[in-house]
């Protein structure tokens, strides 16, 4: 990459005996969006806070917009916008007063009417922060990150806890920022958020990168056409043998969670036909059988045996 907006190599952060981030490398091209995807406790927040200059890494190099935190902290802060997880802005001030405060920190502020328009809070400009809904508060928090016209935006779980409609509005704002050439690094444990916003995803678990690339290439790494989820009726599937299932046409992987089976297949039609025939033969009765296209969640489960959420 000729001029990456962000480059991190060999990042390590330990908290006592726990290694939260364990040798992470990241590179983010200008004008692109990268999502750090992983379950709670994977080290996403620790990683993004090291990149934001809030946490000192125990090892590794960080370069933001070609500058280093050690020598150009003020310049970096002028040029980035940050939304932290769980900031609860001061309640007794208004939306506009909040933005006025944040704009005062920057040499080049942006017209606040424009910022309010971008985040859709124009008619809430005089409302006190305490009266805002969760989604409105989150958009105000985004607005605080946008008052400086940043080149690089850090978003730490920007839609956690929001309802689907509020989540979509946040996505639209981030999309708009990208549309104007902005660079975005976000963390999320929602695969649909990563698929919707990110040009590239980095899947992390236990402080390490376990997969990365475009969402399509990461999903493609599963070599699956679809995922078949089977819930057998109680007690009827006790004698199923994984090896038998794996030998069937198009079946590439079999996983069990309790009585439920998740089967990764490369040829949906052939596999499902063969599976149903086998079930009828050995007396397995089905509660349900569903197939879906593979997602980042399936990649995560395939790699770690765990789910992103939960």
């Amino acid at each position, binding site marked *: 990459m000729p001029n990456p907006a962000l480059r991190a190599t060999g990042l390590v952060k330990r908290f006592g005996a726990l290694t939260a981030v364990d040798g992470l490398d990241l590179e983010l091209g200008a004008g692109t969006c990268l999502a750090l995807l992983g379950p709670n406790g994977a080290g996403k927040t620790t990683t993004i806070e090291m990149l934001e200059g809030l946490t000192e890494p125990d090892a590794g190099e960080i370069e933001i917009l070609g500058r280093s935190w050690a020598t150009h902290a003020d310049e970096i*802060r*002028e040029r980035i916008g940050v939304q*932290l997880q769980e900031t*609860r802005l001061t309640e007794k001030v208004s939306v506009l007063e909040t933005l006025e405060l944040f704009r005062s920190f920057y040499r080049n502020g942006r017209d606040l009417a424009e910022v309010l328009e971008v985040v859709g809070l124009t008619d809430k400009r005089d409302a006190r922060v305490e009266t805002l809904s969760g989604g409105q508060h989150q958009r105000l928090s985004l607005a605080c990150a946008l008052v400086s016209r940043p080149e690089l935006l850090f978003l730490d779980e920007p839609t956690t806890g929001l309802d689907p409609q509020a989540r979509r509005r946040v996505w639209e704002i981030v999309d708009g920022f990208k549309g104007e050439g902005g660079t975005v690094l976000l963390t999320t444990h929602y695969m649909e958020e990563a698929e919707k916003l990110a040009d590239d995803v980095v899947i992390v678990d236990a402080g390490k990168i376990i997969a990365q690339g475009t969402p399509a290439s990461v999903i493609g790494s599963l070599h699956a056409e679809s995922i078949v989820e089977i819930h057998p009726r109680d007690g009827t599937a006790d004698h199923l043998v994984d090896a038998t299932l794996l030998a069937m046409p198009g079946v590439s992987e079999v996983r069990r969670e309790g009585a439920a089976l998740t089967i990764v297949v490369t040829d949906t039609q052939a596999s499902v036909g063969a599976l149903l025939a086998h079930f009828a033969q050995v007396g397995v009765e089905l509660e349900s059988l569903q197939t879906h296209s593979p997602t980042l969640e399936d990649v995560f489960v395939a790699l770690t045996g765990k789910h992103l959420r939960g």
Partner: protein
Amino acid sequence: MASPLPRWPELVELTRHRILTFLRQPESVFWVFAFPLLLSGVLGFAFQGGDPAPSRIGVIGEAQGWAARLAMDPSIALVRYATREEAERELAGGHIDALVLAVAPAELRLDPSRAEAEVARLRVLVALGEIDQGQLTVAPVTERGARYVDFLFPGLLGMNLMGTGLWSIGFTVADMRQRKVLKRLLVTPMRRSSFLSSLIGARLAYLAGELALLTAFGVWVLGVPLRTSLFTFFAVSVFGAVAFSCLGLLVVSRTKTIEGISGLVNLVIVPMWLGSGVFFSYERFPEAIHPLLRALPLTALNDALRAGMIDGAGLGSMLPELAVLAAWMVIPFVLALKVFRWA
């Protein structure tokens, strides 16, 4: 219809939960059990029991050997003064309980609103023995500047400057830290010194109103004198307010919760309520710890406020107190900048 009476199992469980919740908060245990003990200890130290503490009696003049007779009485601690001004000031400041003017016409001056005064009067009369009633007039001190309220008011003012400074800064910062607003500010180009200074600046903005209101009440309603210049009075108050703001910054520099802050602020405040001469003169404590008490910011502030309001002292004569307050600004502020926990 449901019975209105409590039921055993749930009553026992509810009570148990209340007790467990209480015992699992060390700070509440401290305030309920340890703090009253500590308070009794300190007050007991100041107002020592056993033999009743001697009355501190001031005397001027040598007429009829009164001073010698008073000095011999074990229930009296005699202080001789050269000038009446000094003696009256000590009486007004609560440093002595009564003042004998052994000059013609002889007078026993005391503030009848103070509990110690009556004991002092009896002891003086007993010590002097058979004297002609007409020889010694008991004169209640009523002029402005010499009453207990004149002693008390500057102390309350100082106490208030301390409380507001510590609580307002403590709560503001702990709240911002809990809401992660501090951390959010840290990723902007904001200078940290701007933030810390803004807390002191806001404190000074309330100070003007607070000071005007309290002082107007003290002067016009209670009749407390304000003899020094308004400039000196304001300057001393600003010194005090800034010193306590800086101390507030230090107290809150690493505390995450509102509960933690309450405990720490009380820990700072309460010893000074007792030891810094708010309600009674710190001279009641043993002489050996006076230098320690005078190094406390509230003692310095109270002494300077009293010197200004009652004695009309100017800034020049308050340099030791102002120096103590300045030290309480600089040292806590520098320490706070160093150890302050932002994220």
